[in-house]
């Protein structure tokens, strides 16, 4: 007796082979063209099929097509092929429908998102759903575009290798669900000169404080709709200061109490200014239609006096006047204090703020700004600090650090230093790569090197596609000079570094073995970054925040039998749940000995249970300068009462106002402050396990 044959259905299940089902399908195809299949015809067609155990439904149907044509029933074959296509389309709709139902049932937007979960969406609704549905199509389209270009440049073999590494999770292409380039820090000079017409808007250049603040919001929305990630405006306050001075004089900050609004409101200069802060900040925190109901991702920067002089020393406004440090400094401080206070009234995620400080001999050069920075941390404000011993780099975003290639000034593009960003991020899963090497007895870092080399070629192909889009006029941000294509980085992301070291049995603390391990891997990436650098290609390397990639990598690696010590790969150089490391150790592990090759940066998130005093934060700024930790923030969860809405800067288990225990927390799980309940389930788990400092 013959063994029973099994076929594999589309859903992966096995089912006994049935010749009748095939005969039925063929008969229907004959009937659809007004013909009839006799038993004899059916046997002729069937006899051409080669059915073996484990054959897939698709494969059988492919054979039926060929068999019909071989028997010269061309009309029937055509009908059969069209029938299959219709069913394929139906299945795709069915999948989308299933997704829609699952999304509606998910606990929050980030958990419901199948691709590229992002907590920057407060609540799920019809608008966020509309954003989710085409994501899988974007992924397919992006892969196809990239693979076609890789084939053009390097041949089919490399394109296939890319897909293999991608599908086997050795590498991860970030932001595949959008077709726009990633993030940018823009110069607003072209806008100051010509308004938004050059990027497709209809606004003329701002001429006063009112048109500046109103126009700024629109401009940021427009720029953000042409980027998949963040939009940084490092000159926001400097330009605002310019327009305030034009309206109220260069010494406005010395007369901030002066009543200048002659309406019944009788507002002072200070009130006028903070009302504009309110208008800009609240407008930008609104969900945006063009970004799938996410708010735009907006970043601003503050500078100490030395940074300011280095970045804007040569700067001239279109009327040839120079920016003035004293009034800008007042405005920076005013904005920061206002924003800190405003955050007790509403959950305001943006802007993500970075304070840029220059360091020298183990402390900050501008002690006034160092004291102010410590004061703001002690006042419970949450922001990033960027420290450099040279104004040759700037952090424009909540994560990315960028070398400044040109600190010059031009009357068409403004300050060269502020225009930068990352075009595209491609991430290597170090944990899987290292374990793969080990399992296959490959020399240490041989395979890793091969992967990194390929990643640079892929990034180059991405860049070629971007250049093509630019030649077709699709990238007005580049054409109008808001950003420059050759000053934007192609970023090599790193994930699973700590987990790979753990696999190798290396203790995750400040020790030589760990330092060398980190140096070897990041140094290798830097070597390739240099090797592939050309006039129009610049690469940097970043420890990615891994908002959802860290969770995905851990899940995929575990499924494939790799050693996975936690459910979400770290975004730090230490284990996030490690209680044996003190705060100074963490600064050290994010210090120069570990991060020197990390040209694109990584931020230390110092998680603390309680706020420190100003003098303690001031000392920690010295620690950062001494250790060479160039990017950090202090993260103390803020408490939001779900019942009365009270927001408290402290980490509390009970609302101090209404004593409800129904509280949520605002924290930086990655770059920006959000309710913990808005993060995906997996991320909420990670947040729970976090160790909030020793007290």
């Amino acid at each position, binding site marked *: 007796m013959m063994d029973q044959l099994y076929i594999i259905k589309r859903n992966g299940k096995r089912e006994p082979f049935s010749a009748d089902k095939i005969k039925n399908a063929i008969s229907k195809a004959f009937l659809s063209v007004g013909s009839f299949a006799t038993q004899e015809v059916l046997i002729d067609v069937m006899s051409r099929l080669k059915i073996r155990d484990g054959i897939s439904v698709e494969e059988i149907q492919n054979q039926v097509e060929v068999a019909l044509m071989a028997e010269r029933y061309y009309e029937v074959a055509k009908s059969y092929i069209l029938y299959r296509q219709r069913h394929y389309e139906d299945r795709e709709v069915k999948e989308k429908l299933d997704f829609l139902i699952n999304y509606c049932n998910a606990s929050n937007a980030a958990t419901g998102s199948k691709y590229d979960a992002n907590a920057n969406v407060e609540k799920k609704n019809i608008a966020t759903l509309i954003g989710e549905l085409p994501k899988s199509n974007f992924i397919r389209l992006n892969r196809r575009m990239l693979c076609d270009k890789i084939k053009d440049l390097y041949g089919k073999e490399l394109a296939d290798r890319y897909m293999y590494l991608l599908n086997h999770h050795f590498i991860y292409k970030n932001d595949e669900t959008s077709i726009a380039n990633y993030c940018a820090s823009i110069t607003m000079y072209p806008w100051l000169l010509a308004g938004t017409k050059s990027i497709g808007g209809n606004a003329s250049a701002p001429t006063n404080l009112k048109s500046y603040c109103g126009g700024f919001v629109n401009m940021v929305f427009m720029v953000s709709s042409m980027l998949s990630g963040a939009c940084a405006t490092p000159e926001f306050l400097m330009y605002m200061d310019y327009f305030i001075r034009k309206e109220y004089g260069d010494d406005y900050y010395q007369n901030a109490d002066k009543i200048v609004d002659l309406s019944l409101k009788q507002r002072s200069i200070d009130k006028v200014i903070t009302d504009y802060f309110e208008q800009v900040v609240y407008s930008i925190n609104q969900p945006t239609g063009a970004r799938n109901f996410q708010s735009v991702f907006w970043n601003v920067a503050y500078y100490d006096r030395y940074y300011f002089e280095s970045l804007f020393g040569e700067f001239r406004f279109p009327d040839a006047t120079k920016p003035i440090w004293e009034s800008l400094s007042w405005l920076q401080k005013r904005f920061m204090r206002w924003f800190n206070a405003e955050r007790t009234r509403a959950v305001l995620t943006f802007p993500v703020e970075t304070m840029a400080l220059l360091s020298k001999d183990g402390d900050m050069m501008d002690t006034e700004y160092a004291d102010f920075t410590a004061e703001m941390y002690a006042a419970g404000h949450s922001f990033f600090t960027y420290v450099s011993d040279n104004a040759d780099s700037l952090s424009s975003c909540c994560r990315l650090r960028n070398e400044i290639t040109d600190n010059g000034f031009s009357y068409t593009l403004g300050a060269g230093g502020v225009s930068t960003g990352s075009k595209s991020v491609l991430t290597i899963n170090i944990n899987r790569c290292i374990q793969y090497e080990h399992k296959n007895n490959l020399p240490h870092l041989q395979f890793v090197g091969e992967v990194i080399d390929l990643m640079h070629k892929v990034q180059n192909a991405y860049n070629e596609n971007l250049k093509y889009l630019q030649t077709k006029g699709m990238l007005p941000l580049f054409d109008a000079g808001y950003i420059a294509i050759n000053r934007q980085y192609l970023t090599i992301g790193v994930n699973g570094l700590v987990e790979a070291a753990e696999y190798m049995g290396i203790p995750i603390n400040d020790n030589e073995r760990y330092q060398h391990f980190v140096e070897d891997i990041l140094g290798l990436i830097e070597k390739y970054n240099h090797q592939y650098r050309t006039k129009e290609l610049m690469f940097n390397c970043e420890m990615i925040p891994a908002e959802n990639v860290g969770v995905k990598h851990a899940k995929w690696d575990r499924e494939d039998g790799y050693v996975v010590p936690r459910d979400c790969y770290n975004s730090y150089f230490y284990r996030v749940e490690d209680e044996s490391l003190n705060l100074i150790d963490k600064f050290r592990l994010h210090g120069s000995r570990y991060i020197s090759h990390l040209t694109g940066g990584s931020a230390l998130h110092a998680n603390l249970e309680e706020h420190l005093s100003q003098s303690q934060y001031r000392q920690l700024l010295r620690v950062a300068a001494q250790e060479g930790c160039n990017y950090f923030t202090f993260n103390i969860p803020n408490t939001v009462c779900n019942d009365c809405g009270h927001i408290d800067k402290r980490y509390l288990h009970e609302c101090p106002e209404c004593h409800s225990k129904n509280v949520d927390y605002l924290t930086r799980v990655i770059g920006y402050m959000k309710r913990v309940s808005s993060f995906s389930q997996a991320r909420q788990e990670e947040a729970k396990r976090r160790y909030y400092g*020793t007290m």
Partner: protein
Amino acid sequence: MKYYNFDIVFQEIPDEVTLAVNITNCPHHCPGCHSPHLHNDIGMALDEQEIDKLLKQYGRQITCFCFMGGDANPQGVEQLAAYVRQKSRLKVAWYSGNAQLPQNFSKFDYVKVGPYQENKGGLKSHDTNQRLYRNLNGKPVDITSRFWK
């Protein structure tokens, strides 16, 4: 004198970044003690050599060196406190479980006194019997209220 471990702490001494050394063989055995493992005579020797090691590792980054306990050997604590002052610019603190300030109070910048009493709570409790004194020109100034903010 031996110590169990150390940590970088922020709450124990206000405004300082403190390296706190947990000294073992504690004689007090307060009911409700949070660190009963420190009752036993265990851990590594805490001597000048060990202090040199800790100062080399953290001396530049901290502002204060705190001896947590050591009441079984007050002279030993005072000697090591003097050694820390001699070798560094750091302030020196002592978390003692004794009820009285030490005779050589001037050797310290901060001293906490008072055994832990469960019903009165630690320094954060308004009812606490414990006190933190700061040495201001040789005079002890009670700064316990800093914990009640």
